[in-house]
């Protein structure tokens, strides 16, 4: 089995209306349950906004600490799901479901190592 990172990209700034967000959360929860039932679920989580990020940069013997995200952009990583899947077709199937549930673009990317199972 391979493992895939499904990254959810959301536009920076502007938060969806509470009822829209509630619908998304409900769909996401249902999808996570299905992933678990299929034995595909490894991890899933949503992230706080990019402003909450802190970047650490090695600089000689020191490590510099700066406030804010690594890169400013029109979109940012809003959350991610890690799944176990037989192949890319299966991973894309779950990715499509995630994109529909979140109404956001999803990047599907393979991990280098096979999942031990």
């Amino acid at each position: 089995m391979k493992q895939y990172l499904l990254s959810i990209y959301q536009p920076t700034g502007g938060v969806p209306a509470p009822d829209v967000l509630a619908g998304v959360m409900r769909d996401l929860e249902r999808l996570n349950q299905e992933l678990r039932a299929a034995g595909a679920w490894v991890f899933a989580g949503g992230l706080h906004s990019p402003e909450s990020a802190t970047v650490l940069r090695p600089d000689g013997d020191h490590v510099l600490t700066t406030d804010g995200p690594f890169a400013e952009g029109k979109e940012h990583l809003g959350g991610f799901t890690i799944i176990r899947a037989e192949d890319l077709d299966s991973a894309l199937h779950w990715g499509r479901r995630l994109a529909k549930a979140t109404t956001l673009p999803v990047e599907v990317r393979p991990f280098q190592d096979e999942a031990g199972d």
Partner: protein
Amino acid sequence: MAQPSTADLERIFREEYGRTVAVLVRVFGDLDLAEEAVQDAFAAAVRAWPESGLPPSPAGWLITTARNRTIDRLRREASRQDRYAQAALLHARGEPAEEGPVRDERLRLLFTCCHPALAMSARVALTLRLLGGLTTAEIARAFLLPEPTLAQRIVRAKAKIRDAGIPYRVPDEADLPERLAGVLAVVYLIYNEGHTASTGQALVREDLCAEAVRLARLLAGLLPGEPEALGLLALLLLSESRRAARTGENGEVVLLADQDRGRWDRALVAEGQALVRECLRRNRPGPYQLQAAINAVHSDAPSTAETDWHQIVRLYDQLLAIAPNPVVALNRAVAVAEVEGPAVALALVDELKLDRYHLFHAIRADLLGRLGRTGEAARAYETALERTANEAEQALLRRRLAGLG
């Protein structure tokens, strides 16, 4: 069997490349290894066959040789703790050796090469390389690209197939229609690349057309339940039937209306038309079937004047309903001109937003010319000339412009 000549060997290798690679991909689960194995077996065949004569099943011989020689090599490497070789060996152990007729694995490989997770340009290159057996140099020449660029495109695509885990599998029933449409689009693109451009070496271009027809035949043969696969084959055959008539003595483009219909290849026309009739019988129309049907109506007609234009307009209406597209609407307008006259057609053309497409202006020019609006027609031809870099097309447009009088 007689001793094969070098030309015989080249032909066999070209014909059997896709099939042998496809089987060895199944055996070893790895594209590069499969290709190496097949090339190794071809080299062994070049040494063995001139002495022994052709084996009863060259493909079977090549597959067995490629498999056994590669397993031997992998065993030597696996003993040196090579993880990659071990994985391939493990994969090969689960696959029985070929006995009897060779199973056709090309369909699986074709779906891998045309996977939507690969860029279109990579799909085309991979399909020509792995299934057509064209060399990277040949593909690069056909697409007017530097060979290293093309080679790198193939290397990247193979790496993505391996790393992302793109499967060697015919998609499930639920995904098949959409995925098949993607495969057909690659084959159609290969054909059009060979058919349209006048740049590049003519011979290589014809290779692309021949390869596209071969792939379309393969798809129609392996997926007989899919009418769009039949439709694409019919479309390509009917288009191929007009190849000789399409170019004049000096390589200039000859339009359908001006073609010597006696030079159409009647055998290809008959085969294409039979496929169109089969599609009609199935009654599950799709874009390729409808385009093939339009071509079949043209193929039936002894001249432009005797063409059943009403039928063609009806087919375009159907095509527009399933696949709305301004270029299809433009072609429909050309047919409307034959039924309702150039004024009605011009009104339809003028509604289309195709300013950057040279044929939009060429067709407008033709309609304006037929309406006696010579000055406007000349300006439209000039705009068309600015919109194409293709020399054969430019020559044709200049002739039409000069012919306005």
